[in-house]
């Protein structure tokens, strides 16, 4: 969390934990930025090369819940399977459903994350269109 957050991503303080405020012109942008924000929280650089492709398919009743499910899916692959995400291609997204292809690496010798994240939570979760952009807020349990 020492690096400055990229555009459309803001770190939120929480007494025990940490959150992300995300913003983008499209729903898809918010989901892309959520991966960037997650890597920022974990202190990881995007994975380069490696040639590993990970196809993720997640669903939930609405976009807010979908964001949590998506982030927890990513956390599982990053923390339990040492996947280091690189480029992301969102193949399909509509309300409550997302499929994406992520290229990256699974080098078990790569640096571990700088922190452990237990999960993305549903606490004060938000995903809404405000004016001309989409805004989301999600807190993580550390």
């Amino acid at each position, binding site marked *: *969390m*020492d690096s400055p957050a990229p555009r459309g991503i803001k*770190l939120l*303080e*929480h*007494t*025990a*934990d*940490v959150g992300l405020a995300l913003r983008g012109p499209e729903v898809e942008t918010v989901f892309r930025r959520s991966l960037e924000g997650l890597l920022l929280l974990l202190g990881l650089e995007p994975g380069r090369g490696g040639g590993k492709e990970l196809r993720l398919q997640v669903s*939930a*009743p609405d976009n*807010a*819940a979908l964001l949590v*499910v998506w982030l*927890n899916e990513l956390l*599982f692959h990053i*923390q*339990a399977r040492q996947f280091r995400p690189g480029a992301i291609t969102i193949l399909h997204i509509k309300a409550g459903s997302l499929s994406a292809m992520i290229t990256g690496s699974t080098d078990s010798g790569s640096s*571990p*994350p*700088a*922190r*452990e994240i*237990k*999960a993305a*939570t*549903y*606490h*004060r*979760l938000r995903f809404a269109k405000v004016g001309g952009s989409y805004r989301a807020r999600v*807190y993580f*349990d*550390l």
Partner: protein
Amino acid sequence: MKLEKIDSCRWRLRRQGKMNADGVVYASAGMVAPLEADKVLEQVSNVACLPGITGRSMAMPDAHWGYGFPIGGVAAFGAEEGVISPGGVGYDISCGVRLLRSSLKASECGDRLPRLMDALFSAVPSGIGKSGGVRVDDAGVARVLTEGARWAVDAGFGEPPDLEACEDIGAMPGALPEKVSARALERGGPQLGTLGSGNHFLEVQEVDEVYDEKAAFCFGLFKGQLVVLVHTGSRGLGYQVCDDYIRVMLGASRKYGIALPDRQLACAPLKSAEGKDYFAAMACAANYAKANRQVITHLIRQAFGRVFGGEFLEVVYDVSHNIAKMEIHQVNGSPALLCVHRKGATRAFPAGHEELPPRYKAVGQPVLVPGSMGTCSYVLSGTPHAMSETFGSVCHGAGRVWSRSKASRNVDSTNLRHELEGRGISVRTASMKGLAEEAPAAYKDVCEVVAVCEKAGIASKVARMRPLGVVKG
């Protein structure tokens, strides 16, 4: 939201809106303003909105903003009409504390303390995502999830008397391994016998004050004694169980028409299939945590043996502070079966309670309250008053006041390490960043937290320990 003062350590959040019960916050006058600013009251109020809540929605003096429930939250729900909520337990299911006692005086350690700290840091795997050296096959995993610390002792990671000094004699009943996902097993399987990171730690301490000689004697504690406090939980397995079941509970909340003030409070009736499944999976994660602390105990003993020869550490107690348990409590003068959620709160049963080990029946349950790194920790005992007022619950630690980001900004980890070592506290850590995040300044004063509990009559002080060395994940 405004609190009404009841007395010098209790504050009422009067029932309003969709609340089904009052809220009560245990705090000194000086603690109230930060609590109000920290969204704790909103969370106490949200918990009070859940169906079947019995008594009050409570926050202990170490309470702070959590997710769903406040950390330091206690709430009980009737077995017939109430609910169970994974958010009322947390991701680190059965995170808890274990205290080990030696027969040594700290003053006898001399120059062996640095060697001991090195041996402990080397013996107990700590840090982010760290794997342990314990490998179990599928049959073994099923036993870990159902038998907890009893499996560990049976597998050679301890002695049978260890179990008598554990809550639930080392294994929470009701565990069904088939209710735990393959993903949870994959995430947690390799981590058995590891400390983890974040606020998890292992501390070598000296008992520097005894307040209750009779209880201290009963717990095997004496002034000047060298003890070891371990704080860890169910690792990735528990995190995944919680995440899996919050998704189930979100559907269940809709199915049973439960209005949620915060989605993290997703829940299901205790009598429903969803509620029963979560309880069974949570019990598995609790047993994993108990096995984890038992394996770590074994590793600590080996490290002690390398430094102090034949010295053997005995278990004083092992207790969870993130758990939901079915317990019988008096409600309006009659016994009632309740599901007591303790999210960052410790069970504190009084003398004579049938669930206490025989050796502690005369004085009550040992309650282990770790302070922040570099500050003292306490051993308390449960009281009858806690049974009537807090469903036999009390605080679990100091309680954060700073976010981790704020602690990182304000604390230089190298300076902190020098400061701690200057005070005679050896530090071994896998992460200097993590050290800064867990700086004492990021926490409340544990002495004040304990003082409020004692003044409220929900626990009694038995002994205080000061840190000599800390291993941080």
